[in-house]
């Protein structure tokens, strides 16, 4: 009779950060697409309508939430007592494991790579990429916000980020890149959710629920 052993995989901080980011990104994609190609509200008086204004408000609000979640998450990576995943983010440097992982994903081999780190080797590479994607979105987002609001924190941040805007060739290019990166996020979400489900089915460890409860389960003999 096989026994099931519970293993605490994700700390509460990591789980909260995950859902914080997930929710912000969903809101940001939806509102972002409205801002990029809005539909016209024909009915009613101009004074009663504020659709674009509200969309931009929520876009900026969740953008700022994402910014702070990103900062907290990166702090945890570097200095977290239980949640530090700095070592795990470099799981891809283990080339042998990486090859095993790719073979396993491609259904060539049934030998799963060793479960040495919090992330698989391929996973760690993608998550590092995601980290830079969020950083890029946050920076371009703050530039675009700073160009609108000439007061307070946004003004200070904009003054710091202005050279990046010039380097990118003006606000129009910043805006365009911001739009392109949205699609990278959408592709990431699709693949990420599929991989979580796939893992859950293939390994039967409860991968999907682990990001809610924090636990994965292991069969022991």
């Amino acid at each position: 009779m096989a026994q099931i052993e519970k293993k605490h995989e994700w700390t509460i901080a990591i789980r909260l950060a995950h859902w914080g980011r997930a929710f912000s990104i969903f809101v940001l994609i939806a509102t972002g697409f409205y801002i990029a190609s809005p539909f016209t509200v024909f009915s009613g008086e101009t004074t009663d309508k504020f659709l674009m204004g509200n969309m931009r408000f929520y876009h900026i609000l969740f953008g700022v939430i994402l910014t702070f979640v990103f900062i907290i998450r990166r702090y945890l990576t570097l200095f977290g007592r239980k949640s530090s995943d700095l070592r795990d983010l470099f799981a891809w440097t283990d080339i042998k494991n990486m090859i095993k992982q790719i073979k396993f994903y491609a259904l060539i081999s049934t030998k799963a790579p060793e479960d040495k780190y919090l992330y698989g080797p391929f996973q760690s590479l993608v998550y590092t990429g995601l980290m830079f994607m969020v950083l890029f979105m946050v920076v371009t987002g703050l530039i675009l916000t700073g160009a609108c609001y000439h007061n307070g924190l946004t003004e200070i941040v904009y003054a710091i980020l202005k050279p990046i805007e010039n380097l990118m060739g003006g606000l129009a290019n910043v805006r365009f890149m911001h739009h392109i990166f949205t699609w990278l996020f959408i592709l990431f979400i699709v693949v990420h959710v599929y991989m979580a489900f796939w893992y859950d089915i293939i390994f039967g460890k409860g991968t999907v629920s682990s990001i809610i409860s924090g636990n994965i389960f292991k069969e022991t003999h």
Partner: protein
Amino acid sequence: MGRKTNPEYMNTVGRQYNQLMEHCKANLDKVENELPPAREELSETLKDGGVSRRDFIKWSSIMTATLMLPPMFKPMVARAAESFSRLPVVWLHLAECTGCSEALLRTSYPNIDDILLDTISLEYHETLMAAAGHQAEQNLEKAMHDFDGKFICVIEGAIPTGLDGKYLTLGANGKTGLELAKEVTSKAAATICIGSCSSFGNVQAAKPNPTDAKGISDALGIPTVNIAGCPPHPANFVGTLLHFLMFGGLPPVDSLGRPLWAYGKRIHDFCERRPHYDAGEFVEEWGDEPAKNGWCLYKMGCKGPYTFANCSKVRFNDGISWPVMAGHGCMGCTEPGFWDTMAPLEKPISEKTILANERTVDKLGVAALGATAAGIAIHAVASAVKGHKPDKE
């Protein structure tokens, strides 16, 4: 706001403005003593142009506000305007269309900005001077000799830097634009770039840029004040010259060399159609009902949100209108590289084509999403069919 009710803050600001006033007075005295006497009496010129004293006072108030100075500077602006014709100016034309000169000089009924520009002491202006050939060269050399370190060099047009600048040669001696600009700017008190060509290269520098054209400050590596725009507003140029006369230096500029008082905020921030943007009311096609109602031109490709300029405040043609008011979106002409970055002109930036074949980002994104979904479906089916399971440890 909060700061305005704080007496200490207001005291500090008041003291700063008083210091600025002292500085301004001292500098105007210096201008009046050192520069050659005014060639024309401004009051006479204005009378000839059909401008009353009252109009002039109104104008000086407007200019003071445009320069973002408090009302106490109004007399100083008027005094600087009187000294306007003392300022020696050398005006170079490089790779450009002369549209900026045209915009500044031609109006059906001149306003004070235009009249002031007419009174400017132009020592050398390739389009307007009577001299030609070697005589013109002599004029330029004389101006540089007589007003060494005192004249303002105004440059219109980009510098082609390819082939050592040989894409552009001017004058009887066949000097390249690069040589000429280097020589003149090295002797000028200040260099003002008028128009987007001299500021950032404009259409000459648009891709693929065969002549390797550049803006003045890029090509020569000197600091310039960039009055960007295609063409720029006369008030922005006049204001910069007034600032030079009043304070003996060029105005504070942003990171791209544009005066902050004129280019500090975006078109979008002061657009009269902005409430329609926030309300979600957009023109969907030219001449539709929303267009008649004056709704926002964002979906018709207005680039106001990416463009720093004061067009929406100062307006063109004596304040009659400006592009967005006339019903067409802003094309972003005050921004560097706007021919490339702001395209397509009449579509939002998100509908810019990338790679080839009229592909937009969204079309590519949907295609990539479809490919990903197909890949996932194949992988999922293959995993199920194969019964993919990891080996037991």
